[in-house]
């Protein structure tokens, strides 16, 4: 995927100007930068969610899957219902929950969970969906070190034979997700 952004503005504020990036197929690309520098905006452009900019993308991703910075789970329904919404395979949903140390939480409602548990449910939902392109926005937000390791190995396993783009403000995340391409903002 080759990206050329002539200009991206929010109101009068210019976010990107004459920026170009390349994201090789099957790479593990990190988008690194401090808070507020436009990382999420770039992810939305790359994934096709934001088309309001001047520029072009060559070979854009088709039906990418995204782990949003906010968990974006349906608060009033159970963990399992949130997963069943994206897959009909209940057993796979259960085993994915178990692999994220969420076994036994399938009947819990999202509003009953801690921030870290919600994040893992959002990651479980991502892992249940098939796509050639995977975008992760601050994937380890709210996770402690040991959970971060467990989650990263699951994500890396999932990202095999897929193109992975992840957004982070933390340089330490780069080796955790074995990045081989870095876009610094």
């Amino acid at each position, binding site marked *: 995927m080759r990206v050329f952004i002539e200009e991206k503005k929010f109101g009068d504020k210019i976010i990107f100007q004459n920026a170009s990036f390349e994201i090789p197929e099957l790479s593990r690309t990190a988008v690194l930068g401090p808070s507020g520098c436009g990382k999420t905006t770039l992810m939305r452009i790359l*994934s096709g*969610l934001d088309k309001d900019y001047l520029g072009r993308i060559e070979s854009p991703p088709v*039906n*990418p*899957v*995204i782990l*949003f910075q*906010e968990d*974006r*789970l*349906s*608060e*009033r*329904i*159970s963990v399992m*219902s*949130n997963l*069943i*919404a*994206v897959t009909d395979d209940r057993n796979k949903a259960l085993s994915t929950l178990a692999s994220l140390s969420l076994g036994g939480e399938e*009947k819990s*409602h999202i509003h009953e969970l801690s921030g870290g548990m919600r994040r893992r449910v959002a990651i479980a*939902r991502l892992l249940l*969906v098939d796509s050639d392109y995977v975008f992760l926005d601050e994937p380890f937000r709210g996770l402690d070190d040991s959970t971060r390791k467990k989650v990263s190995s699951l994500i890396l396993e999932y990202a095999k034979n897929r193109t992975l783009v992840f957004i982070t403000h933390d340089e330490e995340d780069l080796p955790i997700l074995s990045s081989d391409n870095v876009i610094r903002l």
Partner: protein
Amino acid sequence: MTSTIRESKAVKAGAIAFWLIVWEAASLLIGEELFLPSPVSVAARFIEIVPTSGFWTSVFFTLRRILLGFLLSVAAASLAASLSYRLQFFAVLVDPFVKIVRATPVASIVILVLVWVRSRNLSVIISFLMVFPIIYTNILEGLRATDKDLLEAASVYHITIMKKIRYIYLPSLSTYIQSAISISLGLAWKSGIAAEVIGLPDGSIGERVYEAKIYLSTPDLFAWTVVIIILAFLFERFFLGLSGYLLRRVEE
């Protein structure tokens, strides 16, 4: 917990007893059953009319029609709200109808509808019309309040429309639906009975109420009013219970 519930029930029973005493005292003070019958004579009349076949015929006549009007209205208003949510021009089209129906007095609508339809089915149309704006407005407001981020995520995850309804829209709408049902059920009864009192369909509760007024049988008027209150209460309890149960199932 149990003692708190018991205390709360005792307080409620005390409040009812207080108003029955006030009613009895006022009735004794006036001393004329024609103007204000005592609770005892109303209860006696109520017990008298309940076992009669005419009572049940009237109850089922009215119940059937108000129920039909209510259910048709819920279905039509839900469909219209969904279309308005998706199609802006449809929302603009429906808006004047909703505003006019909401602002027009029930009596005016009843008399107007009587020009077009037989009084027999009047309460179906009136309860339909009175309930429609409430259900429509609540559901549309709930749909518009659905989390946009969640809908964007649903689109990224290719969640089907049926699953979106089941897992996103319905949980988001549940408080709006409960509130709409609670408000509109009472109105369906009030407007339905008012329509029957004006249109006088044969064998309806409205006709019984009107006859009680014509024959100056105030205990009958009160007894039928008690019947209407009880039916409206049971109706509300049933539908709130049913919708609550279904929405809880959705949230599982």
